[in-house]
């Protein structure tokens, strides 16, 4: 394997994990509810990308499903949270 690719994969993993950490930090810090939801969204995206990168690194295509699920369905939880903020209830 080219060392470049190895480095890139490691770097990408770490960068994404760091991004997730920062997002988590924002969730913790708040200060307002919308910040947390926003950060959760970011966390989801970082996680999804991390799935893909990890899958590449390990050479298994199976993590892909999880990434797909996050991509397609992950926003539902943030959307419902956002709607809760907006309307005070999730479904009306």
């Amino acid at each position, binding site marked *: 394997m080219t060392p470049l690719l190895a480095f890139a994969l490691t770097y990408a993993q770490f960068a994404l994990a760091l991004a997730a950490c920062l997002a988590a930090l924002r969730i913790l810090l708040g200060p307002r509810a919308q910040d947390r939801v926003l950060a959760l969204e970011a966390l989801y995206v970082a996680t999804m990308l991390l799935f893909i990168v990890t899958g590449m690194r390990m050479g298994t295509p199976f993590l892909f*499903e999880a990434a797909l699920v996050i991509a397609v369905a992950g926003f539902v939880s943030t959307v419902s949270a956002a709607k809760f903020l907006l309307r005070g209830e999730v479904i009306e």
Partner: protein
Amino acid sequence: MIEENLLLILVALPFAAALATSTMSPRAHDAAAWVSGLFLAAGGVVLALLHGAIGAGQVVRGQIGWVPALGLDLSFRMDGFVWLFVSLIFGIGSLVLIYARYYLSKTDPVPRFYAFLMAFTGAMVGVVLSGNILMLVVFWELTSILSFLLIGYWHQGQAARDGARMALIVTGAGGLCLLLAMILLGQIVGSHDLDRVLASGDLVRAHPLYPLVLGLFLIGCFTKSAQMPFHFWLPGAMAAPTPVSAFLHSATMVKAGVFLLVRFSPVLGQTDLWFHLVTGTGMATLVLGAFLAIFRHDLKGLLAYSTISHLGLITALAGIGSDGAILAAIFHLLNHAVFKASLFMAAGIIDHETGTRDMRRLGGLRHAMPVTASLAIVASAAMAGVPLLNGFLSKEMFFAAAADWNNGSWLDNALPYWAVLAGAFSVAYSLRFIASVFFGPVATDLPRSPHEPPALMRRPVEALVLICLLVGILPGLTLGPVLHLAAVSVLGPDLPYTDIALWHGLTLPLAMSCVALVAGVGLHALFHAAIARGPEGPPLLHRLRAQKLFERTMFLLTWTLPRLGLRLFGTERLQPQLRLIVLLALAAAAVPLWGVLAPAADPLSVPLNPAFAAMWAAGAACALGAAALAKYHRFAAVILLGGAGAVTCLTFAWLSAPDLAVTQLLVEIVTTVLLLLGLRWLPKRREEIAADRLLPARLRRARDFVIAGTVGIGLAAVAHVMMTWPLIPNVGDWFLRNAYHEGGGTNVVNVILVDFRAFDTFGEITVLAIVGITVFALLRRFRPAPESTTRTEEEAGLRDPTLAHALLVPSVIMRWMFPVLIVLAAILFFRGHDLPGGGFSAGVTVSIAILLQYLGHDLRWVEARLTVLPIRWMGVGLLIAGGTGLGAFVFGHPFLTAHARYVDLPLIGQVPAATALIFDAGVFALVLGVTVLMLIALAHQSLRIARLRERDRAAQKEREAA
């Protein structure tokens, strides 16, 4: 053979009578009495038939097996002693029956009374006849229970209820002690057969457990026979109808105790311990009972204490245990039954005719009821031990035994004096009874005007008094042979015949009798006026009544202390319960693992990836944040929970479990939405709870913090050790080897779920279905807190009206995602067997798709377009899954046997066609139904509240209009 059957019939007769009477109409007074009487008469006939064999010194036995494994058999044996006692029971029973027929009011449900009475008779006969010591206890406890019912027959009165309860508790508890004693005795002897037990006296007395057995046995006997200090229930039991007292408290139940003492004296007796315990208790009871009887104003109370005292006498005799003493005990047992029963009946007549039993109010009754008066006088003379009456004879024998016996102990030396003293007391109370009721000025303010009772009501008394006289005058002719027979059966065949005669010459006992008689008369003459004025009880001591003491102790033991205990050792609060569980779990894990848990010498490990660690830094932050914020910032906690969940999913994916990642992720999403849906119904968190800042709250938190930390560290340590230990060969390997060939799939996890361990999945989907219908049922009755409904109103007011359009653009995208999600679900579903996915994931995905529509629009919009019948889906899903499993039956395979192979279809190629796929379809339908149901049922609450509000508003308007 005939005798055996007769014996069994004898026991069965009273119970049969009870059964017959219990089914009668409450108004069938005469019929009930007649039936009972007939059964008793039949019993008499049987007894007479048996007399032949018994008289020949035979022991008649009869047996029916019941639970041989426990040594419990319905075995009966009858010897002379038993015959005598059974005759007594039947005899007095018949008389009481006649008496009761006239005594009981027409309005009472009399058949019930007869049923109880007959059942009691049966139980009593059973006690006496039992040839199995365990069966004896069975009947013994039955008498306690039935006496409870009989004493409480007039349950409208508080006194009857209390008396009944006390009698039951005291005698019942005694019965339990007796049970223990009998079990031990049975084990010492190696058999529960009475004959063998009776023959093993030496073995028992030599056994180290002898003192314990004796103690338990005596408690049993003493409680039943109302010996000090257990005597107090008997006066309380006087609230029973008089026939009950006449039967139970003179002849039968209380005699059961002394019967046992006499019966078992060959086994347990003849030791110093026995003598001191039994005779000591008996003498104390004799003296104290007689003394207390003097002070009672209540007729039945006096008789009750007199009974206690006489039982003490018999007990003392049994304790002395010499041949003469035993003979005297048996004799007095009979005599006392006869005269006391007649006295109780007489007291009942007086009560019945005058309406009171208070001796201070009664007087001069000899004018109104001369016959009853003379009967009662004779009977009380017998009680006092006046010559020519039966009481005199047995008392004489008692005096003789008391004076004779000599083992040198202080108790033995004191016996004669105590005996005389008790005799004097008994003369005194007998005299008081006669004098205050029948003599003196005629009472005027009686509730009823007294006259003679119906003749038949008096007959039983007459009969009994006649027996008193007959036995008293001609003892040798009437009772002598039978008594000898009885004594022989207790003491052994080589007992010499004792001639009971009226006159033995000028002996010490006679002198003692005279002294007692004179002293008694003197006592009465000196104190009767003072006693009548005094309280119900001896001076100074009348406040200290055992009954009260008992009640207070019982109250303390059975109410106050338990309430306290419940507060101390129990809690209804959830937090301590959970804390206990957690602490115990810690202990449960720590005890086996302490000191053993160590990392493997050659630890397994996977090189650390810093990104993984960084991910978990985020995950840990989320978890801790959720823990910290869940109280005041619920919304934040939900979001943080989502963060932690996402990291968990990633971990699964990272560590080669894509299926888990997918499933966890989907569940995660639905859970978040559910929590958000629920958030709306929770109260707005007040900014700060003041008490939270106080020290106790801080301490509580600190403690919980330590607990939680310990759990975390412990679990982490165990997990770490486990992970670093080398893997042992396990069943997982087999799955890996065989999934493809046997299960027909390459995704082993999924093959396990739908094939190898499909039964787990089967159960799991049922769990989901159950939760679904529970949620549904619960929310049908949902009732929001008042402020949650008003809150929406406030918010509605605050809402910008244009916000109704807020979702216009997003909803378009949400709608587009609907088919995409459906396709995704289909993919997940179809590839499940080979690649990550499966029915569960697919079901959740579709429900997320539907949920998304609810999010983007409102309930009515969606439900106008999509009809989801979640419960139907659930039912169908379950049936499909179950039906697939059943399908295997057709081919003769067990439930859930899957059939899998790849089918070659033209054009398309290899297609996996596993029955597991159908099973998975069932899972899919069910999961879809459940998830949608839960989400929608929760969401519907808002709608319901809105409708409710509208209705309220309409009602309000109507009211205003009116």
